[in-house]
């Protein structure tokens, strides 16, 4: 269906490159969205705008940063003190990363609650997980770049993990390092990779949205779209709702950037890297803390690495671990409670990850880790089989019309 406009210029372009009808069908008035989405559905676009912010601030920061171990720390201070608005760009980039992960975690938890990973959206879920993995790689490498104490030692700890790989472990690590320890070659390659990964992520986001557009968005009821009575066009309803979401997101980001820019950053990173002195507490950024806790919960080095990667790998098989035929937790009274326990467990693991592996934290970390895997491997399959879900509404439009089913149960 070609796009007829009153503007001759638009028609001229459209005839040669149908960009306007393309936009219309993907984010415009011709793209159908469920009419009942709530605010938990804002976080996909928020993650998207966070990626844009990271790329824009990252590109301009790269104009001033020097990826050499002798100069990197100083070049960051040069940005903070001498480059026009350098402090703003740096704080935006550092805190923007945290906001990006916050948005993505909420986005993922939304998926867990409403069953967005279930058929036919398994591939959409997988692409999202790959994006998540790449985000973690990019964030990890980005943190190394300022070459502070935490940059250096976090890099040392995490790259050393790979020595746990049997047979080739040590060769693998020295290959990653480009030497016998984390040093200049490591910094240089991390800079190159850190710069390129966000663009790979952007490409995957395109795939992610393409996959999404095949079967359209899930919705809080978890039931399929039956017809046009269940949908409203993306524009103007969700364009405007997304913009409101952006506004709230920007306020939160601004509060951090302008009033608490260093709250989420380790103070040790304001000390230049010193290979001779290890900081008393090596702590990763908050968004890695749960995985850090899982890593340390297993006493065996290889076991810890396997558990940590396993914690993410298990998400790939989630569509098959969850045996329920009902998508949305709104109609799954048992699963819903386990979902919130899982949220609490994730936060508990984060708390454990922030603290040294001593005393009560060791047991807490082990309990949290065991429960994490229990949730996916045992609870989800069993709950799916034995749970009696609440009756699903007939359609998305029906609860709106009748009003009765709409009031069923809290979130």
């Amino acid at each position, binding site marked *: 269906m070609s796009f007829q406009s009153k503007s001759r210029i638009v028609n001229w372009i459209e005839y040669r490159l149908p960009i306007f009808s393309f936009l219309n069908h993907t984010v415009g008035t011709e793209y159908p969205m469920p009419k009942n989405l709530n605010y938990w559905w804002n976080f996909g676009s928020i993650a998207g705008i966070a990626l844009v912010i990271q790329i*824009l601030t990252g590109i*301009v920061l790269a*104009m*001033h940063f020097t990826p050499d171990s002798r100069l990197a720390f100083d070049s960051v201070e*040069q940005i903070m*003190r*001498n*480059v*026009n*608005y*350098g402090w*703003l*760009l740096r704080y935006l980039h550092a805190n923007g990363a945290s906001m990006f992960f916050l948005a993505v975690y909420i986005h993922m938890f939304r998926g867990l609650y409403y069953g967005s990973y279930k058929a036919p959206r398994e591939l959409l879920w997988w692409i999202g997980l790959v994006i998540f993995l790449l985000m973690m790689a990019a964030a990890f490498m980005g943190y190394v770049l300022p070459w502070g104490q935490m940059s250096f030692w976090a890099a040392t700890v995490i790259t050393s993990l790979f020595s746990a790989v049997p047979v080739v472990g040590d060769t693998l690590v020295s290959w990653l390092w480009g030497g016998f320890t984390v040093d200049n070659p490591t910094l240089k390659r991390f800079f190159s990779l850190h710069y390129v990964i966000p663009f790979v992520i952007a490409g995957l986001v395109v795939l992610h949205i393409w996959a999404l557009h095949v079967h359209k968005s899930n919705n809080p009821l978890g039931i399929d779209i039956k017809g046009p009575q269940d949908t409203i066009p993306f524009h103007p309803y969700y364009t405007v709702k997304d*913009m409101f979401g952006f506004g709230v997101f920007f306020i939160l980001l601004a509060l951090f950037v302008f009033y608490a820019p260093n709250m989420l950053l380790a103070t040790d990173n304001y000390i230049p890297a010193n290979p001779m002195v290890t900081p008393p507490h090596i702590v990763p950024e908050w968004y890695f803390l749960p995985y850090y806790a899982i890593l340390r919960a297993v006493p065996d080095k290889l076991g810890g690495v396997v558990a940590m990667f396993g914690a993410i790998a298990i998400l790939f098989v989630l569509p098959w671990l969850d045996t329920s035929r009902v998508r949305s937790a709104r109609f799954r009274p048992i699963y819903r409670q386990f979902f919130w326990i899982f949220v609490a467990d994730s936060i508990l693991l984060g708390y454990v990850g922030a603290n040294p592996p001593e005393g009560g934290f060791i047991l807490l970390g082990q309990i949290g880790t065991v429960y994490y895997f229990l949730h996916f491997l045992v609870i989800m399959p069993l709950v799916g089989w034995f749970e009696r879900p609440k009756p699903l509404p007939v359609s998305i439009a029906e609860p709106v019309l009748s009003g009765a089913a709409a009031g069923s149960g809290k979130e």
Partner: protein
Amino acid sequence: MATTQGEAAAGRSRRDFLYLATGALGAAGAAAAAWPFVDQMNPSADVLALSSTEVDLSGIPVGSAITVVWRGKPVFVRHRSEDEIAAAQRDDNADLKDPQRDADRVQRPEWLVMIGVCTHLGCVPVGESGDFGGWFCPCHGSHYDTSGRIRRGPAPENLWIPEYAFIDDATVRIG
């Protein structure tokens, strides 16, 4: 009905105003947000910080010159002879593309301090060459006289004079 139509029209214009106000505010915000990304490419504070170069004049005999680096550019410091000064002053009223008196180009007549960058397209002119006893730019054939003024060739202006000051008789600070 006229009333509902009127109300509808009023409602439309209220809605339009809301959209207009929000859109305008959003656009202004986007422009303001774009500025730091543009401005960060402007020279940073350390580059702008007035950097000076001090030149020791005692080692420059009459009739010779040295080239120093100031802010990344070459600066000619020439100890002019009596003949060169006389020639420069004599040509004050000659047909100059960029009229300027020699006395306005030097603080002390025997010391000529100029940025050694051709005002045409930026090459470094060669000293003691050209048809006017001064400098010659080999890139496109500009001739400068003993006061550094453009006499022939495509350059539009005389060689630029930087800010400088004599600290004492043997030292000058450029910048």
